[in-house]
Structures are given as structure tokens and as C-alpha cells.
């Protein structure tokens, strides 16, 4: 407690403050008490704090309803998840589109080529060795909405695997050359 840490002078100050407060404490006024109580009793009904209090029984009942609703929601969510899962399995068996990016060592700047494999069965993928897949980034096994997801997967693969143009001089020279060619062809 902070009071134990007070110095002698501070303790004297505190004692003095307390003593003076006790000495100057006003007397209890019964008339003021009655006046305030009368004012309190005259408070309008709607401001009386007793009215809006909720009973414990109401609270318990509402909690039971909330629990029941939560259980129903959980059941619906599980059913929905199971049906989605079933649809995914069926699509996978039929063979899903696999997007991958192929890394070409010889052309590091333009190394990424997103290739969409033609409907490869999933079982075959599991049989491929790691070495075979080392140059290949499998982006996603696309389930029901394959068209949109394939597009997104290709974009993502390009974004992730596109190397930065480290050799800037060569990159700039190549870009300017291609621009010159474009201008010449326009002419």
C-alpha cells in the first residue's frame, strides 16, 4: 500500500489533512435528508429503476431458446458440409483440372508458364515421385467451379513464380529491342 511508503513529512501532511477534514465535517441534516427523499419519491414512474429490470426466469428461458437455435444451426452446418464434401469427392474422381507452373531453367525471366493439365485423375498424382514434381507447382485441385478457379490459379502461379528481372541491362535492352521492332512493324 502506498501509505506505508510515505515519508515522515508526508505522513504528517496526511494526518493533518485527515484531521482537518474530520474537524470540518458538517453535521448530518435530517431536513436535507427528508428533502432529498421527498424528491426521490416524486420521481416519475418511468424513471423508477424497478420497472425495467428483467426477471431471472426470462433470462433462463431466453438462454434455452438460444441454445436450441445454436444446436439447429450446427446441424444445418454439418449437413451442408457433408453435401459439399460429397460433391468434391465426385469431382475429384472424375478428374479435376490441375494448374501448375512449369519452371524453365534456361529462361529465368520468363520462366513461368501456367499449364492446365487436361483432366488428370487424382490417383495418378499420388503415384508421381517428388523428383518428377519438383519443377511443377501444383496450385490447386479445383473442385466444382473449375473455370474461375483455374483462371485464378494460373494468375496466382504467375504472380508467385515470376522471377524478378535481375539482369536489368539485358532486360531493358530486350524490351527496347522489342519496342523498336514494334515501331518498325507499325511503319
Amino acid at each position, binding site marked *: 500500500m*502506498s501509505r506505508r511508503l*510515505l515519508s515522515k*513529512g*508526508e505522513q*504528517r*501532511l*496526511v494526518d*493533518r*489533512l*485527515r484531521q*482537518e*477534514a474530520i474537524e*470540518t*465535517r*458538517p*453535521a*448530518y*441534516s435530517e431536513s*436535507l*435528508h427528508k*428533502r*432529498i*427523499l421527498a*424528491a*426521490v*419519491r416524486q*420521481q416519475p414512474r418511468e*424513471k*423508477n*429503476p*424497478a*420497472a*425495467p*429490470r428483467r426477471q431471472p426466469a426470462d433470462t433462463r428461458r431466453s438462454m434455452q431458446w438460444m441454445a436450441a437455435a445454436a444446436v439447429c444451426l450446427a446441424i444445418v452446418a454439418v449437413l451442408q458440409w457433408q453435401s459439399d464434401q460429397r460433391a468434391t469427392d465426385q469431382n475429384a474422381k472424375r478428374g479435376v483440372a490441375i494448374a501448375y507452373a512449369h519452371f524453365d531453367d534456361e529462361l529465368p525471366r520468363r520462366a513461368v508458364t501456367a499449364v492446365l493439365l487436361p483432366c488428370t485423375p487424382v490417383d495418378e498424382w499420388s503415384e508421381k515421385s517428388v523428383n518428377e514434381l519438383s519443377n511443377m507447382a501444383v496450385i490447386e485441385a479445383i473442385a466444382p467451379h473449375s473455370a474461375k478457379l483455374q483462371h485464378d490459379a494460373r494468375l496466382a502461379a504467375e504472380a508467385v513464380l515470376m522471377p524478378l528481372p535481375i539482369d536489368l541491362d539485358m532486360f531493358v535492352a530486350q524490351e527496347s529491342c522489342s519496342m523498336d521492332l514494334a515501331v518498325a512493324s507499325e511503319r
Partner: protein
Amino acid sequence: MSRSSPELLTSDEELACRAREGCVASFEQLLRRFQTPVLQFLRRRGLTLDAEDLVQETFLRAFQNLHRYDSRWAFSAWLFTIARRIGINQQRRVRPTVDVATVTPPPASAPEPLDTMVVAEQRGRIWDLAASVLTEEQLTAMWLHYVEDMPLSDITLVLGRTRASLKIMMFRARRKLLPLLGEFDENNRLRPAIAAGEVFHE
């Protein structure tokens, strides 16, 4: 009233909860307990003339807002928070906003005997000196802690401060007040230079 009365043994918080449920007798008991402390607290803030009206306003507002009272709070902290806000509002209302330069000084006349007596009575008091050197927050914190024995955790709620900042504030307040102790003589009277109206500032 006998000391063994069950109402006296009931805590403030319990009484407040009962009052919240609509028990006016419990509120009356709270009023009985806190009338004097709140009155003195408001008077100490310089609101001497209308202190009783402000006490009434404090209790009325407390009664109206009892449904907002959280029993995790100490009732005294909640009540003094209301009293403090009412006091601050009142001080803002009564504070003169007249431009001093445009006011002509009143003619010199002899002060009323009653005024002289009140001033003389108040002159030797350390709380009056404290009120002149401390900020409103410091004064409130010192009063609640040392006079009302309110723990620091409750004062943080009243002032809306952290515990660390409250401790610093009180340390600074004590440091401001300590030199004032030396200004009282052995009969607890102010020395002449101070009584003449010197203002203490850090």
C-alpha cells in the same frame, strides 16, 4: 440507531442492488450514509452556497440511474463520480465570463462582519491552501483517498485515470502540499505572510 441494526451491516453495494430492484428504504439508507460525505466533498470544491442543492441533485441522479450501476463498482466510487461531475458542471455555470478589463472596481468599503469571520475561519486551513495550489483532479484524488479512505482502484474509476498516472498525480500533489506544512505555526495557525494571501505555486 443501534449499531447492531442489520441495515448497518449491509454493504453499500448490496443496498444499491436492492435499491435498483425498487427498494426505496435501501436507497434511504444509502442517503443516510453518504449525505454528509457528499456534502463536504462538494463544499470543499468551493460550492459552499448551493452545496445542499447539489447534494440533492447528486442523489436524484443516482436514483434515476441506478439501473446503470454495476455492482462490481464500489457504490461510493460511483456516487462520488456523479457528485464530481455535478460539481464541475456547477463550477462552469457560476464561473464569471465577464471581461475583467471592462469591469470597474467596486468602491472600497468595509467588509461585512460575517464575511470577515468566514474568511478568518477558513484562513488557517490546509485544505483551502490545497485548493489553491492543486488541480481539480489532484484535489479530488487527495480528498477521496485520505479523507474518504477510498482505495486507489476506485479513485481510478472516479477520475478515469490509470493506476500509474493516479499515483504520479498524488505524488505530485503531496510534493506541492508538503511546503505548506511549514507555513503553519505550532498552534496550527498560518504564518502572517501566508495569511496575507500569498499564493503557492510549484
